[in-house]
């Protein structure tokens, strides 16, 4: 019986009910996905059984690497002693990155993204399923390797991997080839892990030393602070062995904190951060509020329609309970339909996300999804009950209908204003985040030049032939320039050397005498179009003999060296003192000062940097720029030359702007997600506004008629109807602007270099919101204004 009424009532106003369902469904799917995404972000690395006891060990030392905080430690060889010294440590696993970017099997090279030499205790600290092999024994022998499923597939196809030999080729980083025996295959590390190794292997001969990511497994209830606090004592004990480092500070970070709370140098992979979490939580909250308030306001507005039904029922003896029951049932019905629609949208979006990003948000989350859906549904039903809870209906009115009417519009006002506060705030956020993203991408090294590709971390054998590669490539008309450098675009230039300069004395100001170094090829400045403030590029055929070295410095380095006039520093004697006896840099002069360029993220300040050219020294990354419009030709030219020179090495390159997009992956994702949610929010709000305008103009039918009878033109009626909506958007704008200004200012603080918060961004957002609102209501207003007044007045 009840459902029959509900059905009839819903069918009577299909459009308004459609708006209700769509608004709720979009709101629910949005909230669901954000919650799933947030859950995914917040549970990084918690899949390890002992996740709560795994900590990553890091150090800072003012005397080493300029007190920079690296994600890995430089003296990993002392970890066994450390573990022996502190009773809190149950076990440890060190991951020393395998460098060079390739592994070899059967004389063929395979590129690797992440690979580590690790301790045999790897599987006692971390958890991932072994598809082949026994966790306890697989890494026992030296030179044992476990490869990921994906890597095994890539190298061996369907063949069994076990027993095969995979070698780390000799090269820049390794004097001789090292062979490893594959002993097992592990599942690919899950997406919500902060590292995803292609392979791990125990050292074949030497012990692990020098740089390694170091994870300590503490005993149950052990206090990590005992270790960090006791570290100086430990170093004092070991002082003789390791050469006193009393200044080193140790840090232990829970493994589950790495993804969101770690922004150290040389992280294994780029991490996310809490800003992202906050931005998305706010988006979810706004979406929830908007869809709920929308539903509530439409229900309040439409309650009038049921007034007669309810009043007559009351006269005939029904109780208020009956009304509650009716509205409850109606709300339940609407919410159920919305949930079904939302789930349909959800399944679709989920498969899209899985396909494009490889993130399976639904997997293993059925109870979480059920929780979110029921929470949302409960809120929805509660919002749907607003009319009864507000006693808006069900009281027998005695000819004072209009009192409730004017009341009704006021309720909606607050909701519409708050919806537009959110809408304007979101538009501002989207514009500013997008502008900042554009700003950072445009100001990155080589940005705006769509025609540069980079071969990252090429193998030493490839590096040796750089000069041939360059001279051969330049013979092609498609190629503009070829260069090579220490770090790829988007990388971090962290290497520092002590230096001496004519007229610069350290004692003068207690300044550190280390400076960032950046070996590069002659064409570097030209290829990336660096601005010279003074001086010139390296001379092309410099012999690199002692005394004739040439150095370019960036503007920050000039200031660091205590000069303000770029002309004055030209020609000053300069010397880098290499800490590595195998590397020598000839003494020479500063030949040029270039404007600061952004090799690394614009979140960080540009550091003083000295560029120098040294044949075959650390030219790890090749960059090639080609002429506009000749991409295809250039690529095939490069490819054939590559096959000729380096047939055994994979031909893998990346566009420079893609490399930078990887650096700002989080911000770009934020911008994209936020624009989607802004669009959904505005869409829901507009739908609601459309419904409200429908209701308002229905309520004002009589007034419109009277005004028209008394001489009002259509335009005057339109102005009257739209005036309120404009007023509401203006109020929303006034409230939203300072909030958005504050929030975006906070967001921009993440960056060392940022765009300005121009006034026009706010003006534009306000105009956009106003435009959307007017567009939404005008259709309805126009219909109401052009209606024949006779119709409006006839039945009064």
């Amino acid at each position, binding site marked *: 019986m009840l459902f029959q009424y509900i059905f009839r009532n819903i069918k009577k106003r299909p459009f308004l009910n459609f708006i209700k369902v769509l608004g709720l469904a979009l709101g629910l799917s949005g909230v669901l996905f954000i919650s799933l995404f947030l859950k995914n972000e917040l549970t990084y690395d918690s899949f390890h059984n002992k996740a709560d006891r795994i900590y990553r060990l890091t150090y800072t030392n003012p005397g080493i690497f300029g007190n920079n905080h690296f994600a890995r430690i430089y003296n990993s060889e002392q970890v066994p002693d450390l573990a022996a010294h502190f009773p809190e440590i149950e076990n440890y696993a060190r991951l020393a990155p395998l460098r060079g970017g390739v592994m070899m099997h059967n004389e063929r090279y395979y590129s690797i993204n992440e690979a580590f030499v690790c301790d045999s205790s790897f599987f006692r600290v971390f958890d991932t399923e072994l598809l082949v092999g026994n966790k306890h024994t697989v890494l026992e022998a030296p030179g044992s390797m476990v490869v990921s499923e994906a890597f095994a597939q890539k190298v061996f196809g369907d063949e069994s991997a076990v027993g095969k030999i995979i070698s780390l080729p000799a090269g820049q980083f390794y004097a001789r080839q090292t062979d490893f025996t594959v002993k097992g295959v592990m599942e690919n590390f899950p997406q919500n892990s902060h590292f995803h190794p292609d392979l791990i292997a125990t050292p074949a001969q030497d012990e692990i030393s020098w740089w390694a990511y170091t994870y300590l497994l503490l005993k149950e209830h052990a206090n990590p602070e005992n270790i960090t606090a006791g570290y100086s004592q430990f170093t004092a004990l070991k002082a003789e062995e390791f050469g006193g480092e009393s200044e080193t500070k140790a840090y232990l970070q829970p493994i589950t904190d790495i993804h969101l709370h770690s922004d150290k140098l040389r992280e294994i992979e780029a991490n996310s951060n809490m800003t992202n979490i906050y931005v998305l939580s706010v988006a979810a909250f706004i979406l929830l509020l908007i869809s709920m308030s929308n539903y509530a306001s439409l229900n309040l507005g439409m309650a009038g329609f049921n007034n007669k039904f309810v009043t007559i029922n009351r006269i005939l003896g029904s109780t208020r309970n009956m009304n509650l029951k009716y509205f409850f049932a109606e709300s339940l019905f609407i919410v159920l339909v919305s949930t079904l629609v939302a789930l349909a949208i959800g399944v679709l979006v989920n498969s899209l996300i899985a396909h494009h990003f490889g993130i399976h948000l639904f997997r293993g989350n059925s109870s979480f999804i059920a929780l979110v859906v029921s929470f949302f549904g409960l809120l929805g039903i509660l919002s749907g009950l607003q009319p009864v809870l507000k006693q808006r209906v069900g009281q027998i009115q005695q000819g*004072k209908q*209009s009192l409730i009417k*004017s009341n009704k519009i006021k309720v909606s006002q607050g909701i519409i204003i708050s919806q537009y506060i959110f809408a304007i705030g979101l538009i501002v956020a989207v514009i500013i985040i997008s502008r900042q993203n554009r700003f950072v991408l445009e100001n990155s090294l080589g940005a705006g030049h769509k025609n540069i590709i980079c071969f990252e971390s090429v193998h030493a054998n490839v590096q040796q032939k750089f000069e041939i590669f360059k001279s051969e490539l330049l013979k092609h008309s498609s190629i503009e320039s070829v260069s090579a450098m220490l770090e790829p675009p988007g990388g971090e230039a962290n290497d520092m050397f002590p230096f001496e300069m004519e007229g610069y004395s350290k004692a003068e100001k207690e300044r550190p005498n280390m400076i960032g170094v950046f070996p590069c090829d002659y064409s570097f400045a030209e290829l990336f179009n660096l601005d010279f403030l003074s001086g010139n590029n390296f001379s092309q055929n410099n012999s690199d003999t002692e005394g004739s070295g040439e150095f370019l410095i960036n503007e920050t380095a000039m200031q660091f060296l205590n000069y303000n006039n770029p002309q004055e520093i030209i020609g000053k004697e300069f010397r880098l003192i290499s800490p590595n006896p195998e590397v020598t840099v000839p003494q020479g002069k500063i030949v040029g000062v270039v404007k600061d360029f952004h090799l690394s993220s614009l979140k960080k300040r540009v550091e003083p940097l000295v560029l120098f050219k040294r044949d075959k020294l650390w030219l790890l990354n090749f960059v090639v720029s080609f002429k506009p419009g000749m991409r295809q030709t250039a690529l095939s030219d490069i490819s054939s030359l590559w096959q000729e020179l380096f047939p055994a090495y994979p031909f893998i390159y990346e566009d420079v702007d893609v490399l930078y997009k990887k650096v700002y992956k989080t911000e770009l994702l934020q911008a994209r997600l936020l624009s989607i949610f802004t669009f959904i929010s505005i869409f829901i709000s507009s739908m609601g506004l459309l419904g409200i305008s429908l209701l308002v103009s229905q309520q004002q039918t*009589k*007034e419109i*008629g*009277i*005004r*028209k*009878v*008394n*001489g*009002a*033109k*259509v335009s*005057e009626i339109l102005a009257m109807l739209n005036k309120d909506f404009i007023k509401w958007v203006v109020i929303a704008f006034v409230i939203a602007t300072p909030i958005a200004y504050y929030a975006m200012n906070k967001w921009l603080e993440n960056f060392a270099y940022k765009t300005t918060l121009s006034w026009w961004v706010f003006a534009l957002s306000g105009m956009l919101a106003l435009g959307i609102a007017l567009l939404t209501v005008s259709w309805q207003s126009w219909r109401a204004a*052009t209606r*024949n*007044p*006779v119709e409006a*007045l*006839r039945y*009064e």
Partner: protein
Amino acid sequence: MIQTNKLTKIFRTEDVETYALNEVSMEVKRGEFVAIMGPSGCGKSTLLNIIGLLDNPSGGEYYFDGTEVGSYKERQRTMMRKGNIGFVFQSFNLIDELTVYENVELPLIYLKKKASERKEMVTAVLERMKIGHRAKHFPQQLSGGQQQRVAIGRAVVANPKLILADEPTGNLDSKNGLEVMNLLTELNREGTTIIMVTHSMHDAGFAHRVINLFDGEILTENVNEKMADIL
């Protein structure tokens, strides 16, 4: 002042055509007070709406002050209506959200009169309707008779040539009804042409002439002897 020639109005629903007016030809002279009578659904209000330029006829001609206005577009009708025609309805049709003063002021605003001029005119009309003391009240705070006086005040404030009244006493008791009829008569004496639709023989007695409509056609037209004398 008003002349119609075979005025026809057809309402169409999906499969029925209803002739609300069927070739109605009539004339109303300047200064006349005409009552239109007839049973419910005979087309009285439709005729009044067309005369009042609120609606278009489906056929025939309508001359207002010598101009053919039957084929006017909405915008033209609004322009012609403004300041020339005042309306009084059975249900008063006041705007609840506006005060008495603001309700009366409405036509003057759309005529783009200056605020000072408006104030003068509205105050004068309210005094005349004997509701000056109620200027700041809202319609719902007034009695039915008072509300109708406000509505008449609004109809005459711009000094229109023609007042159209659709059952002006229909919602009033006899005392208030009489008061309204006296007001209309007075306005007519001062020269305003009045066309009134009514069910009430008593009210029709105030008019010079009564047109009887039946099923969209003029059945009879009789001159009210007593009133004609006065004329």
